C-alpha cells in the first residue's frame, strides 16, 4: 500500500500516523500542505491530528481549503482511501467528504484520556480486523470532538452502516455517541479517537493496530 500522510502547519500526529502505517508495512510519503498533487500512485491518504493553522476560524476550516486538500477531494471522488484522525476528521467534514461537523466539547474542556469504543461495522477496509460489537480502548485528545449531524443525516448514516465507531460512554456530547463516520462508498473514514496512539505495546494498548493491518490487507488487494 502506498500511503501519503499530510503535514499542515500545526499537525502534531503526522509522524505517529506514519509510524503506525509503516509498522503495518505501508510505504509512506509525507506531503506538505502547499503541494497541489499527491505523489503518483498513492492508494491511501492519512489526514493527521493536531491543530492545523492554529485552529483559526474553525478547526480544520483553513486546512480544508489548502491546495493539498483539493487533491485529496479528487482522490476520494475517484474512489481512493482517506483516513482522518482527530483534526483530520474535522478537516474531512470541512471539505464535505464526510457529513456533519465537530463542535466544542459539551463540557467545554479539552479531554485527553483513553475511552471505550464500540465497533459498529466490520464491513469496511478500516474495521474488518474487528467484529461488529467489539469494544476497544483508544485514546482521545480533543477540544472540539462533539459530533453533530441533523436528524435526516443521522438516519441515513445509521441506515447505510456508515457509523464506524460509537463511544461506550460519550465524553464530549456527540449526537448518537458517534466517534467515527464513513463516506457513502466506505473508503473515507473520519474519527476523533487516535488508533495510531494505540498501535504499540509502549503506548499502553494495541487495540488500534488492527485498523492498520486491515487496511494493508484490503487496500493492497484493491
Amino acid at each position: 500500500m502506498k500511503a501519503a500522510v499530510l503535514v499542515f502547519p500545526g499537525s502534531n500526529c503526522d509522524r505517529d500516523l506514519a509510524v503506525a502505517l509503516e509498522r503495518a508495512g505501508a510505504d509512506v510519503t509525507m506531503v506538505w500542505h502547499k503541494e497541489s498533487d499527491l505523489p503518483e500512485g498513492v492508494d491511501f491518504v492519512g489526514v493527521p491530528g493536531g491543530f492545523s493553522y492554529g485552529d483559526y476560524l474553525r478547526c480544520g476550516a483553513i486546512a480544508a481549503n489548502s491546495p493539498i486538500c483539493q487533491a485529496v477531494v479528487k482522490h476520494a471522488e475517484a474512489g481512493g482511501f482517506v483516513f482522518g484522525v482527530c483534526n483530520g476528521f474535522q478537516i474531512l467534514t470541512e471539505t464535505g467528504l464526510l457529513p456533519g461537523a465537530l463542535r466544542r466539547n459539551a463540557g467545554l474542556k479539552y479531554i485527553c484520556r483513553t475511552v471505550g469504543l464500540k465497533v459498529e461495522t466490520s464491513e469496511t477496509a478500516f474495521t474488518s480486523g474487528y467484529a461488529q460489537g467489539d469494544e476497544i480502548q483508544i485514546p482521545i485528545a480533543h477540544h472540539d470532538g462533539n459530533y453533530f449531524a441533523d436528524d435526516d443525516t443521522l438516519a441515513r448514516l445509521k441506515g447505510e452502516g456508515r457509523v464506524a465507531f460509537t463511544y461506550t460512554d460519550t465524553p464530549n456530547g456527540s449526537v448518537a455517541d458517534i466517534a467515527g463516520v464513513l463516506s457513502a462508498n466506505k473508503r473515507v473514514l473520519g474519527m476523533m479517537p487516535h488508533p495510531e496512539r494505540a498501535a504499540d505495546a509502549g503506548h499502553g494498548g494495541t487495540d488500534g493496530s488492527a485498523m492498520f493491518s486491515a487496511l494493508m490487507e484490503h487496500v493492497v488487494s484493491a
Partner: protein
Amino acid sequence: MKARVYVMLKNGVLDPQGEAVKHALGSLGFEGVEGVRQGKVIELDLAEGSTEATVTEMCEKLLANTVIESYRVEIL
C-alpha cells in the same frame, strides 16, 4: 468598502459556550438571563467594486460552516 459578517450557531444546535456564559451570569447574580448564544464577528476591508454577492460566497465557502452555522452579511 467594508463588510461585517456575523456567524452564529444555528438555532437548535447546542452552544456549550453560550450555556457556560449564561451560567456565569447567573452566578454573578444577574437574574432573568434566559438564553445566551455566542458567535463571531468578522470585519472585511474590501476593494471598491466588491459586491455583497462575493461576501456571501466567502461565507458559504469559508467563513461559516453552514452545517451548523448561520451567517448574516452587513455592508457598511
